[in-house]
C-alpha cells in the first residue's frame, strides 16, 4: 500500500510517497525513505525491537517508538512524523536528550547502597515490579503537558526512578532524593495527573500512579 509520509524536517516539511507492506513499521518507512528516496533524512535507531528507546519520535502528533508502530495501526494513509517535543532538535528527527538526562541525574538515579553482598539481589516488591521497565526513551517527557510549559520540572521518568530507589531498602540517599522531589517549583507538585505520560509510555508503566504515590508519601514525611 502506498503511504504519504510527511516528515517535519529542519528545513521544513517534506512529503514522501512510500510503498509499505501492512506489517511494516514507521522505522521501516524511514529506512525506505533514506535508502531509496532521500539519503539526507536523519533519524536515530538502534535495536529496532522496542528495547533501547532510541527511535522515539512523534507519529501523528503522538510520541511513540518508530520500531513498535505498525503503519497499518495508524488508520490513515497519511502519516506525519516529527521530532519529540520539549527537546532541542539537532537535525530532522534527531533530538538531544540532554534536558531529559539533566532531570534524570537530579534524582541520583543510581543506587547508593552500603558495601554489602546483597547488592546483586533486587528485593521483590509488588508496588515497584511493574515500574522497572523504563528504557529512558524520553517519550513520557515529550508527552507531558507540564513539560510543554515548564523547563525545570523533573518529568515522569526521573520521578519514577527516584521512586524505585526510595522503595529499595538497600538505598541510603532517600533524604536527598525526597528534597528534590518535594521542590514546589520543579518536583512532584507540578504534576496535575493529566495521564499523558501513562498513555504514551511504550513499556506501559503507570507513571501517574508513581507520582501520586509519592505525593501521598510526602504527606507523611
Amino acid at each position, binding site marked *: 500500500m502506498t503511504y504519504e509520509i510527511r516528515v517535519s524536517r529542519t528545513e521544513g516539511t517534506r512529503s514522501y510517497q512510500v510503498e509499505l507492506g501492512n506489517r511494516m513499521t514507521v522505522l521501516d518507512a524511514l529506512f525506505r525513505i533514506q535508502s531509496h528516496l532521500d539519503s539526507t533524512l536523519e533519524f536515530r535507531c538502534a535495536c529496532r525491537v522496542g528495547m533501547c528507546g532510541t527511535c522515539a519520535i512523534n507519529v501523528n*502528533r503522538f510520541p511513540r517508538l518508530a520500531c513498535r508502530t505498525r503503519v497499518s495501526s495508524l488508520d490513515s494513509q497519511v502519516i506525519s512524523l516529527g521530532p519529540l517535543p520539549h527537546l532541542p532538535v539537532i537535525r530532522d528527527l534527531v533530538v538531544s536528550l540532554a534536558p531529559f538526562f539533566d532531570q534524570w541525574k537530579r534524582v541520583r538515579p543510581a543506587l547508593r547502597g552500603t558495601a554489602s553482598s546483597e547488592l546483586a539481589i533486587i528485593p521483590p516488591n509488588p508496588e515497584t515490579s511493574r515500574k522497572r521497565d523504563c528504557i529512558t526513551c524520553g517519550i513520557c517527557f515529550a508527552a507531558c503537558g507540564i513539560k*510543554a*510549559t515548564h*523547563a525545570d520540572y523533573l518529568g515522569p521518568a526521573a520521578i519514577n526512578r527516584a521512586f524505585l530507589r526510595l522503595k529499595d531498602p538497600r538505598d541510603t540517599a532517600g533524604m536527598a532524593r525526597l528534597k528534590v522531589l518535594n521542590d514546589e517549583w520543579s518536583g512532584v507538585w507540578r504534576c*496535575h495527573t493529566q495521564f499523558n505520560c*501513562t498513555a504514551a509510555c511504550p513499556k506501559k508503566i503507570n507513571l501517574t500512579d508513581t507520582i501520586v504515590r509519592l505525593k501521598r508519601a510526602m504527606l507523611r514525611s
Partner: protein
Amino acid sequence: MRGLIVKYGGPFSGMVAHVIQRVTGLLLLVYLFLHVRTIYALSQGPEAFDRAVGAFHNFFFKLLEIALLGAVILHALNGVRITLIDLGVGHERQRQLFWVWSIGLGGLIFLAGAIPLFISSILRH
C-alpha cells in the same frame, strides 16, 4: 520547546480535563470577584444594594448565570475525579471516569438546573 497543549489524534481526556479544570477555575475566580464587589453594596444601604443587584436582572446576565452553573458543575465533578485519582482509585478507567462522570453526569445535572433557569428567565423578561 514547542506547543502549549500536546495534541493527539482526538480529544485526550486527561488534557481536556486539565484544561477544563483550569479554565473553569479562573472563570469562577472572576465571578467571585464580581460577586463580592456586588455584595459589598450591602454596607451602603438598601437602595444601593437593590440597585447593584438589579443591574444583573436582564437576559444576558441570566445566560451568564446558566454558564456559571455549568462551570461550577464541571469544576466540582472533575475535582472529585481528581481527588479519586490522587487516592489511587480509578487509574485504569480514568478516561471513562472523565467522560461518564465529569461530562456525562455533569451534563445531566447542568440540564436539570439550566432548563428551569432558562424557562423562568424567558417568562420574566
